[in-house]
């Protein structure tokens, strides 16, 4: 328990120093927010299109599809704020030998390497846009905002972000074995956008691949499907097991990877 408290306190310090660093260049910080607003518009465009056509896709009304889009935006905020920069910088941190110092610190190296930086500019528009989109579509659908619904939704979002962390960390860890992983990291990262729409729009085989083999649909689709009671018991169990299971596997992989670390130029 004291270890968790210690890591939480360290994380608070990481967040504070990250914010101070980012506010040092205020123009960039503001431009970052404006740029993300433009990206937010592209995400909302999909919901806008569905509303303009007014059709039901896979039994989902335009408002229900908008709830998927809103959840995707919220998860994008969490992922970009907490993990994206950290995971993206792993290959060059390993190449530059930045881990030398991390390895001797009295905290988890995995925690230090993958959560060192907290991004503030990018998540701001996504959190605001995501919360508004979710709230408006939630109320238009007439979903009950009961305790159970909200807790289940938040729990699956947290599991989704845990899964995203583990899923996107895997290609980055390959950098410990081979230097050239940039192509793989970027290609895997671009899978994120598959969550921008409900998985019902894809064919059965893509759905199966996206749930079981490359579980991207579990990240942002499952929380909303749970709200609509359209998660089968099997999917629900998978939604609980996959994030925890993959996290354990990735942590073990991290421990093996770190043994391959040979410092700068090594």
């Amino acid at each position: 328990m004291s270890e968790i408290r210690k890591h939480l306190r360290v994380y608070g310090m990481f967040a504070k120093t990250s914010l101070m660093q980012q506010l040092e260049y205020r123009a960039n910080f503001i431009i970052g927010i404006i740029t993300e607003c433009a990206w937010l518009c592209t995400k909302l465009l999909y919901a806008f299109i569905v509303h303009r056509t007014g059709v039901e896709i896979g039994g989902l009304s335009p408002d229900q599809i908008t709830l998927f889009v809103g959840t995707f935006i919220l998860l994008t905020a969490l992922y970009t704020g907490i993990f994206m920069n950290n995971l993206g910088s792993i290959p060059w941190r390993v190449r530059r030998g930045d881990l030398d110092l991390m390895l001797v610190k009295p905290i988890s190296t995995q925690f230090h390497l993958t959560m060192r930086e907290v991004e503030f500019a990018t998540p701001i528009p996504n959190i605001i846009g995501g919360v508004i989109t979710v709230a408006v579509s939630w109320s238009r659908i007439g979903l009950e905002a009961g305790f159970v619904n909200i807790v289940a939704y938040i729990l699956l979002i947290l599991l989704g972000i845990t899964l995203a962390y583990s899923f996107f960390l895997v290609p980055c860890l390959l950098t410990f074995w081979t230097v050239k992983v940039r192509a793989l990291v970027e290609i895997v990262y671009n899978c994120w956008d598959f969550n921008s729409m409900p998985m019902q729009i894809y064919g059965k085989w893509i759905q199966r691949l996206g749930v079981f083999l490359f579980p991207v649909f579990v990240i942002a689709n499952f929380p909303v499907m749970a709200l609509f009671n359209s998660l089968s018991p099997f999917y629900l169990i998978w939604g609980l097991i996959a994030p925890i299971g993959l996290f354990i596997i990735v942590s073990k992989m991290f421990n093996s990877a770190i043994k391959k670390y040979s410092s700068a130029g090594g």
Partner: protein
Amino acid sequence: MKAIKKYYTVYTLAMQSVMQYKTDFFISLVSGGFTIIIQFFLWTAIYGASENPQLFGFEYAQMVTYVVMAGIMGKYISTGFEYEIMEDIMEGNLNRFFVQPIGHLPYRLFGFLGVKTMENAMVILISAALLGIIGITAGIQYSVMNIVLVLLIAPFSLLINCMLFYCLSVTNFWLTWGWGVFNGARVVTTILSGGIFPLDVFGETALAVLKFLPFQYIVYFPLSVVVGRVTGMDVIYGVLIQIFWIIAFYLLSRVLWKIGMKRYIAARG
């Protein structure tokens, strides 16, 4: 003649350099491919669920062709030299253009065109393959004339985008780190040029306003020719407007650079 020779050398050297960055090019193609897949399934689902065979004035085959080709067109018109100009300004590399008998704009432009010649040859081949696949699976017969026309129009689209970003690169004289400006401008340009969805989805009013802006002549206009929504004299009018925007951006870039150069301090140069 000497001027042509030196810029031709820049052009050929840039063509050769593409092979060094073939991994980057491959990544961007695959990444763009994901967006195309999402769009394809989205529109297939929408048309499948709609009782109306036409949405926003597009039939299914036209819409699928448009969104798939929009993804490809995004690659065709993409720039990237703006980051090099940012470094030129930050690192003081512009100094060499004061002493060397070479202009900054033609140097960057010919270098860019050299890179794009190689990349776009690949893009055109992929487009041909995709059009063939869509044509066979959706039973569409494309007009050969439209395809030839778009091959002639697309370079003008590329030049508009190129000159637009050349103008934007001047912001680095003030910002020193214009990464965010370029990214933001890229997203806005993509949306307003019809690079994600055809502009018709925004409604008549937006379409009327966008006619007075350069963006739609980058993606929407050439792709409207491909799907047969712009024909005859309208194609010629469209090309003339494209040429107008290229000249306008060229002149604007000259003025902006003159103002920007007054702030240039040759840091680290």
